[in-house]
């Protein structure tokens, strides 16, 4: 009813995650009514990203070069590998500023009920990478603290266990700066399950 070009853009927006009919229409009419420069800048940006950005051949994060900036940076510690679900998780870890090792991006999480199986992710490539690169001493399983993230960590453990590499999982529980009173039951339960010894460490004299 709005014409073929408009309908087509609505359809394309609707294919994006989290966008329904109403949002797709709103975005489309924003572009129809906006300036030509603004609309074409968006089209150009999409074209450029599709032409230049690709997964890094080593870690599968999104980058304009392969190997990516992190994989080709000699100052990154080659002994530690942090496995995350998505490229946005790499960004989050980098913002924390506390991590100096390298990454491996799975490109999702296992969700068998929805049909996402282990071989749909980059788990085999990770196992091959760990097998080939004997500098890697520790693999940090930094999948999300969700049911799918936990299940994915179990699949990773099964794939990496035979390789004899040390595996760790990110700690979980109470947010720093929070209080017990306002923590949810689920988070308190997890914090309790993940409690650690608190004895004073005695140095050998």
């Amino acid at each position, binding site marked *: 009813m709005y014409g073929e070009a408009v309908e087509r853009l609505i359809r394309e927006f609707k294919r994006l*995650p*989290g966008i329904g009919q109403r949002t797709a229409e709103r975005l489309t009419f924003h572009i129809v009514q906006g300036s030509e420069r603004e609309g074409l800048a968006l089209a150009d940006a999409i074209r450029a990203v599709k032409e230049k950005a690709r997964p890094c051949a080593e870690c599968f994060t999104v980058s304009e070069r392969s190997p990516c900036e992190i994989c080709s940076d000699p100052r990154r510690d080659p002994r530690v590998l942090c496995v995350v679900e998505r490229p946005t998780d790499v960004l989050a870890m980098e913002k924390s500023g506390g991590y100096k090792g390298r990454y491996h991006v799975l490109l999702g999480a296992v969700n*068998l*009920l*929805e*049909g996402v199986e*282990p071989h749909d992710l980059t788990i085999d490539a990770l196992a091959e990478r*760990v*097998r*080939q690169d*004997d500098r890697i001493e520790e693999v940090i399983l930094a999948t999300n*603290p*969700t*049911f799918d993230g*936990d*299940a994915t960590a*179990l*699949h990773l453990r*099964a*794939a990496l*266990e*035979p*390789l*004899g590499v040390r595996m760790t999982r990110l700690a979980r529980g109470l*947010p720093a700066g929070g209080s017990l009173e306002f923590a*949810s*039951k*689920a*988070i308190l*339960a*997890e914090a309790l*399950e993940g409690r650690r010894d608190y004895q004073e460490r005695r140095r050998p004299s």
Partner: protein
Amino acid sequence: MPILKTEAIVLRVIDYSETSLVAWSLTREHGRLHVIAKGARRPRSPFEGALEPLVRGELVFYRKKKASDALEIAKEFDPIDRHSGLRSDLARVHRGLYLAELALELSEREDPAPEAFDALARGLHDLASGPTSALDAALVAAELGLLAAAGLSPLLEGCARCTAGAANVSGVVFSAAAGGLLCDRHAQGDPAARPVSAGTLKSLAALQQGTAVALRDGVQRDLRALLDAFVRHHLGKSLRLSRYLGAQRPVRHRPRRSPRGAHA
């Protein structure tokens, strides 16, 4: 909009938008219940960390009196049992998800399901806290419970097609298509008929009656094949998780290029 409260076991969670989730759960009173949990994906939401598959909890929701396929609006979800033991190994995760998938297939919205709820609740509890050796028996017991609640119990007394007994010259025969054991005469013309060992039949009957049994490897495999065929026949398809119930995916035991610590 009335506010309702019910015990629910979460079967499936779908990312709905940047901040919201849709959860499908099984309840005693309302059968399968579909709720939207607005803001559940935000860090400080009232659902924080609780609205996840296989968690049993108390759900508070608003009932919308509009289209029957509309989503109810979840207000709170207070976990009663998170079944965190389920997340400790893949055998438990996969068996728990298999039960969730079966419950999804067998349940209907707004169709009360007290027996199915109880079978699922007991199954998840046993899978989360039972010993590894008892996982398959717990799975089959819960599976039979869910099937029975849907009126789909395998018929194990006499022939499923006539009044004859089922112990006959060719041994005992089970047919997924007939829904149970068959006499000699009816076994003849049934392409789905398969011989079933006395041990498998005994375990199946015991588990159907709610008796705990230990399953030997061979019996466990036979039972699995029998129930897979039975479920496939009644649902018209295999469950996604059925492929994950056997031994874990074989891992290639190729060593690393050089032994750890051996290279200088």
